[in-house]
């Protein structure tokens, strides 16, 4: 068959496919279906819906013929474009549902944390050991504080956490602080994760640096003797914030280690797979940090709540965090086939 006959015979079909793909109603219906969470939603009217897969398969077949018979690049690129577009509609991924967020927080996130517990431990140590080391060092020689804490900040510590501190803070500052904590802390968690790509170095840097900072900060608080007011302030949001720092560090290390030790995969494949695996941990850490920001801005700094209540609630929140990470979604853990195999063996 000559090219011109071929084109004449099938061009109706192609225009029909084009019409289906570009019909304005298809875009609207797609949205409705996306919000209803229908799988592989074809964004189509019912009669189009039946026709599209058929037309798509035919255009794939015709594209193969066009290539095999060398009908020419323009026809080939037209059919390639059509097939691509139809392919895109037929193979789009399932639309998001609020249920997915709940599942991320209650199942996927804690489960991934448990699966990465070795890395989480490493990340925690990379954070805690420098903090303790710095605390001890600064206690011995208090000049060291200003090596990591800017002098201006160090000078304000007394004002902020002293017995008279934070009393006079107006309500508008609470909101400003919330915005700042989200912008700053969630941003740091994301950067910690991303920079882990460079063989884990970036994640290690953020963990150790934050550890040093907090150690020095704590040493300064100890020197001034403001422990009670300081720890009653940080304990509540610290439950979420400190955990989230360690978790985003662990996720960053996961990225870096996938390049260092890809196993029997190519490094590119390992990176893709491990990145996908690490993402729920980063997402969970981000949610933790938003919770921490809410607590830090509106609860921890409250002048009305007595310190003893803050300490009690803070301790309870630590327990909640640890229970969430160690127990939530555990039923699913045990149903995992690889676990079952291990037990059988």
């Amino acid at each position: 068959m000559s090219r011109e006959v071929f084109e004449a015979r099938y061009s109706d079909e192609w225009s029909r496919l084009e019409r289906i793909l570009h019909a304005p109603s298809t875009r609207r219906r797609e949205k409705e279906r996306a919000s209803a969470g229908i799988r592989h939603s074809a964004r189509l009217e019912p009669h189009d819906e039946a026709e599209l897969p058929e037309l798509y398969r035919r255009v794939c077949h015709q594209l193969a013929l066009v290539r095999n018979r060398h009908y020419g690049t323009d026809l080939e690129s037209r059919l390639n474009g059509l097939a691509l577009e139809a392919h895109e509609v037929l193979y789009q991924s399932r639309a998001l549902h609020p249920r997915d967020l709940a599942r991320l927080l209650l199942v996927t996130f804690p489960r991934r944390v448990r699966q990465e517990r070795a890395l989480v431990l490493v990340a925690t140590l990379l954070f805690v050991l420098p903090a303790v080391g710095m605390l001890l060092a600064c206690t011995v020689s208090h000049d060291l504080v200003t090596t990591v804490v800017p002098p201006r900040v160090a000078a304000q510590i007394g004002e902020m956490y002293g017995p008279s501190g934070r009393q006079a803070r107006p309500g508008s500052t609470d909101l400003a602080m919330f915005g700042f904590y989200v912008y700053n802390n969630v941003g740091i968690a994301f950067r910690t994760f991303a920079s882990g790509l460079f063989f884990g170095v970036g994640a290690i840097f953020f963990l150790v640096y934050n550890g040093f900072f907090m150690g020095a900060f704590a040493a300064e608080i100890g020197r001034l003797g403001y422990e009670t007011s300081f720890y009653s302030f940080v304990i509540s949001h610290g439950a979420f914030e400190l955990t989230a720092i360690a978790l985003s560090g662990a996720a960053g290390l996961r990225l870096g280690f996938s390049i260092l030790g890809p196993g029997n995969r190519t490094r590119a494949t390992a990176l893709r797979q491990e990145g996908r695996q690490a993402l729920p941990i980063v997402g969970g850490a981000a949610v933790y940090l938003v919770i921490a920001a809410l607590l830090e801005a509106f609860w921890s700094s409250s002048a009305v709540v007595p310190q003893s209540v803050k300490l009690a609630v803070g301790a309870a929140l630590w327990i909640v965090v640890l229970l969430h990470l160690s127990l939530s979604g555990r039923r699913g853990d045990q149903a995992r086939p690889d676990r079952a195999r291990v037990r059988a063996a």
Partner: protein
Amino acid sequence: MFRGKAPLTESEVLPFDAVRRVETPEGVTLTLRVAGPLPRLYAALVDGAIRGFAYSIAAVVLSLLHDLGQGPLLLVLFLGEWAYPVLFEVFRRGVTPGKSLLGLKVVNGDGTPVNLTASMLRNLLRFADFLPFGYAAGVLSILLTDDFQRLGDLVAGTVVVHADSPRPRASRGLRVPDVPPVAPPVPLHAHEQRVIVGFAERLATWPPERARELADLASGLTGAAGQEGVTRLLGHASWLVGRRRKAGEGER
């Protein structure tokens, strides 16, 4: 009539083009035209400008609230920095406003629309691309990978492609002129056929001197130079698109 020839090899099809091939479950290979660094830079600049504009509007509006506006402004900055690209890519099928202006879009490596996981990964990793300064790592990665992927694209398994396929020549009024078909003296390879048909289709867009100059390159085939070479090439092209003795009427 051309059956029995060896199948096309990649170098025969599109020798220098930046193209990524994707095999579908239907067993046909689709080609994605991946976008190079320059259009992507422009798209990023447009997106940056849009964000900057939105920030300044937010700053002006929120300044009416005095101190109370500071917190929301920081939230706007946060969303602009981290959520802007993800929201557009997920809800507008891989297209941010900047990409839309440049005709680009993000797709998964297999050509399907980018999903939330992939979009979040590639945009979180933007910070790694930024390091150590001014997107140096990202540019390096784009230049070193076959499909122009920055680090975020590598982790997410995504590519940035030109969204619109080139307009077919026929729709621009470019087709092989209706001249009597002449069979080529020797059997031609697929890429040779393409070149000749392409020449005939685009003839109208060149000055005659340029057409003769190009036809001279094929004098080995046509055995003629100048205008005669052009005419013979057109005859071959006409034959190659399937026309036979009576021009305009194909054989079955």
